[in-house]
C-alpha cells in the first residue's frame, strides 16, 4: 500500500486544484479515450459488414462517422429504470466499468514521452484494473433483479476469472524475462525490429503471446471465447435491462477494454512505440515533438493490427460453450502457461542475453505465416469477385 500511495503522491500531487483535476479528467475522457473508441468501433463495424456481405459501415469511408451516429442515437434515448431494481447499484454499475477502463490510460504509454505517469509499477497498476473489469458485470446483473441477468453476470464473472488468471500468468512470464514491472522499461528492452521483440525472444514468449490473445478475448467477452452476453441464449446477459446512456457507457467500456488490452499486447510483445532510430533523427530535424508523433503512429498502427487480427478471429469462429471454455482454460491453457513460465525461467538461465538464432527463426516463421495468410486472403477475394468479373464480360 505504501508503494501505491507514494506512486499516487509523486505523480498526481502537482495538480492540487479541483479545476486542474477536472481538466485532467476531461482530457483523459474526451481527448484520449473517445477518439480511440470511435476508431476501434469503426474497424469492428467495417470488418463485420465486409465479412457478412451487408451494406453496413464498411460500405464507404464516409461511414467513419457511423459510431458517432450510434452514440448520438443512444444518448437521445430514455434511460429506463424498472421499479423492482436495486436502483443505486443499477445506475452505478456502468460507470464503475467505465472508470476501471479509463483509469488504465494513466499508465499506458503512447510514445517515449507521451504518457501521463511514468510509473515503476505500471504493469501491476494495469493488471489491478484489469482484475476489476469483471466487477461491474456482477453489479449490473445482480441489481437488475432478473434471473437471466443474474445468469449472465455469473457467466461473465466465470469467464473473466478464466481470462484474468491467464493474463496474470502472461504478465509473470514477461516480468521474469525482463526483470521489470515498468511498461516503459519493458518497451525499451525491446527494439524496433521484429527479431528484437519479446514475441520472438523464445518459443515460450510466443506461447505467452497466444495466451494473451486468448485471455483478451475472454475478458472482453467476444467469440471464440465468449457467451456471457450472448443475445440468442440469455437475452444479452447482464446488459439486458440497460437502455440509453447507461447501455452506451457499458458498450464503450467494452470497446475501451478491447483497445487497452490490444495496446498492452503491443507493448508487452510487439515492441510498443519503438521506431527505428533513423526515422527519429530525420523527424527531429523538423520539430522536437515530431519523433514522439512518429512513435505514437507506430504504436497505433501496431495496436490496430492486433485489433484487426482479433476481429478477424472473432468474426470467423463461432463461440465455445461456457463449460467447454472452462475446461479448455483450466485443463489446457493454464497448464500451458505454467509450462511456459518454467520454460522461460530455464531459457533466461541458459541464454541471459537472448539467442539471436531463435529470434531470427521465429520471426521468419511469422513472415512465412503472414505470406500464406495473405495468399489465402487474396485467393478468397478472387473467388468472391470471380462471378462478378464473369458477369461483366457476358
Amino acid at each position, binding site marked *: 500500500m505504501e508503494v501505491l500511495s507514494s506512486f499516487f503522491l509523486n505523480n498526481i500531487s502537482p495538480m492540487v486544484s479541483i479545476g486542474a483535476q477536472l481538466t485532467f479528467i476531461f482530457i483523459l475522457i474526451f481527448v484520449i479515450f473517445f477518439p480511440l473508441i470511435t476508431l476501434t468501433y469503426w474497424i469492428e463495424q467495417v470488418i*463485420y459488414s465486409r*465479412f*457478412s*456481405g*451487408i451494406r453496413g459501415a464498411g460500405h464507404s469511408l464516409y461511414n467513419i462517422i457511423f459510431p458517432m451516429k450510434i452514440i448520438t442515437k443512444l444518448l437521445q434515448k430514455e434511460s429506463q429504470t424498472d421499479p423492482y431494481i436495486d436502483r443505486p447499484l443499477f445506475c452505478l454499475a456502468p460507470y464503475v466499468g467505465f472508470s476501471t477502463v479509463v483509469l488504465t490510460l494513466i499508465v499506458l504509454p503512447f510514445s517515449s514521452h507521451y504518457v501521463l505517469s511514468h510509473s515503476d509499477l505500471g504493469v501491476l497498476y494495469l493488471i489491478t484494473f484489469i482484475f476489476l473489469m469483471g466487477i461491474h458485470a456482477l453489479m449490473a446483473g445482480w441489481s437488475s*433483479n432478473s*434471473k*437471466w441477468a*443474474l*445468469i449472465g453476470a455469473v457467466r461473465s464473472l466465470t469467464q473473466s476469472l478464466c481470462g484474468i488468471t491467464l493474463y496474470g500468468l502472461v504478465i509473470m512470464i514477461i516480468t521474469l524475462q525482463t526483470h521489470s514491472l515498468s511498461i516503459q522499461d519493458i518497451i525499451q528492452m525491446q527494439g524496433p525490429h521484429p527479431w528484437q521483440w519479446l514475441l520472438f525472444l523464445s518459443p515460450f514468449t510466443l506461447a505467452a503471446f497466444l495466451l494473451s490473445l486468448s485471455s483478451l478475448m475472454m475478458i472482453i467477452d467476444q*467469440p*471464440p471465447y465468449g*457467451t456471457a452476453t*450472448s*443475445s*440468442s*441464449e440469455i*437475452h444479452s446477459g447482464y446488459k439486458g435491462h440497460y437502455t440509453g446512456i447507461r447501455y452506451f457507457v457499458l458498450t464503450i467500456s467494452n470497446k475501451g477494454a478491447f483497445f487497452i488490452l490490444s495496446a498492452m499486447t503491443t507493448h508487452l510483445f510487439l515492441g510498443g512505440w519503438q521506431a527505428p532510430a533513423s526515422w527519429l533523427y530525420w523527424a527531429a530535424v523538423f520539430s522536437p515533438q515530431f519523433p514522439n508523433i512518429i512513435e505514437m503512429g507506430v504504436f497505433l498502427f501496431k495496436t490496430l493490427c492486433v485489433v484487426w487480427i482479433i476481429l478477424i478471429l472473432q*468474426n*470467423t*469462429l*463461432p*463461440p*465455445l*460453450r*461456457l*463449460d*467447454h471454455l472452462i475446461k479448455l482454460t483450466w485443463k489446457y491453457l493454464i497448464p500451458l502457461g505454467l509450462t511456459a513460465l518454467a520454460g522461460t525461467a530455464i531459457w533466461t538461465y541458459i541464454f541471459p542475453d537472448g539467442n539471436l538464432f531463435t529470434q531470427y527463426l521465429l520471426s521468419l516463421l511469422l513472415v512465412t505465416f503472414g505470406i500464406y495468410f495473405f495468399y489465402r486472403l487474396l485467393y478468397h477475394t478472387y473467388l468472391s469477385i470471380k*462471378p462478378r468479373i464473369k458477369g461483366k464480360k457476358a
Partner: protein
Amino acid sequence: MNEWLGEEKKVCIGPHHPVTRGGMNFIASLDGETLRQAIPEIGYCHRSLEKIAENTDYQGFTTYASQADPLSPYSCQWSYVMAVEKLAEITVPRRAEFLRVIAMELNRITSHLHFLSFMAEIIGAKILKAQSFKRAEIFSHYTTTFCGNDNMFLQIGGVVRDLCSSDWETTLIQFLDHLKTFIDEYSYTLKNNYVFQRQLSFTGVISVEEAIQYNLVGPNLRASGLAWDLRKNRPYSIYSELNLEIPTCQRNKGDAHDRVQVRIDEIAQSASLIRQCLEKIPQGPIQCKITEPIKPKTGEIYNCIEGVRGDTGTYLVSNGTTQPHRLKLRTGSFSSLALLEKMGREIPLSDYLTLIASLDISPWEADR
C-alpha cells in the same frame, strides 16, 4: 431474492426469446447451467384458423390457409386446396401443377435457408447467420416476383400467375448455381468446424423408434434415418414424373448435426426439382373453369402433402353447402413440440436451445 437461493430456479425461455421465433414459451427449471425440466407452452400465436374456415367459403379460406405458417405459406395452402379439389372433383391444368411445384420448392429453399441462418444464430456464428439470411432474402425476392403476394398464389383450380419472363428463369438458374457453392461451404463448415461439431454432434439424439413413436415428420424424421417422403412414397401432383432422391442422414444418429445436414441436402434436392420443372413445363392454361361458389358434395376427405416441415394434412368435412362443415389442419411442428418435454431433462441449457432450434419448430404452425 430468497427464492433464488434454492437449488433450482424457474425461468421462462420465451415468449420473446430468439429461439422461440416469436411465440412459444418453455417453463424451465434451471440448476446452474443445467436444465432439470422444461415444459413447452403454446397458444401465443393462436388465430383460430380452423374456426374461421367454418365461416368462410371454400375459395376464401385459401388466403387464410397460407397464414398458418408465414415462413412456408404454400404447405398448408396446397394441402387445403388439393383437399377441396379432390372433394369437388376439379381437375387442375397440367401447367398449373408445374407452377405449384416450382412455388413450393422455392418456398422450401427459402424456409430452409431461414433455418440455417437461425441455427447459426443460436450457435453464435454471426457471420454465417448473416450470409444465410442474405441468401434467404434473395430467394424471398424471387418468390415474390414470381408469385406476387405470398398468400394469394394457389387457388382452387389452378394458380393466379404465370411465369414472369425467360429473363427471370435465367437469373433464377444462375442463382441456383451460386446457392450450390454456398451450401457446399455451409456443409464444409458443419463437417469440419470444431465448435460446430462440439455443439451439434450427439446433441438431442432421436432414434428412429422414438421418432415414429412421437410422430415426427419431414426432415426431422429423415434425419433419424427413415427415408419417408410423401413426394416419393405416395406421389401426388406431378412428383412421380420428376427425378427425386430422398436425402436421409448419412451417419444414422439422429442428432442436431444430422437435422441440419438433411436440410442442406434438401435445398440441393429442391434446386434440382426446380430445374427439372423449368425444363419440362408444358404450355397451356393455368386455371380451370370452376363454378362459383364451389359446392362439393357431402362427404369427408383427408389429404396430405409433403410440406416444408413435413407431412401437412387437411381433414375436411363438407355438408354440401358453400362453407366447410369442419376443417382440421395437421402440421409437423406440433408433433415435434411433444418431444421437447421428454428431451429437456438433465441437459445443459445451451444444448436444449440447440435442440429446439434444430427441430425447426414454427410456433405459428403449431398454434394455427
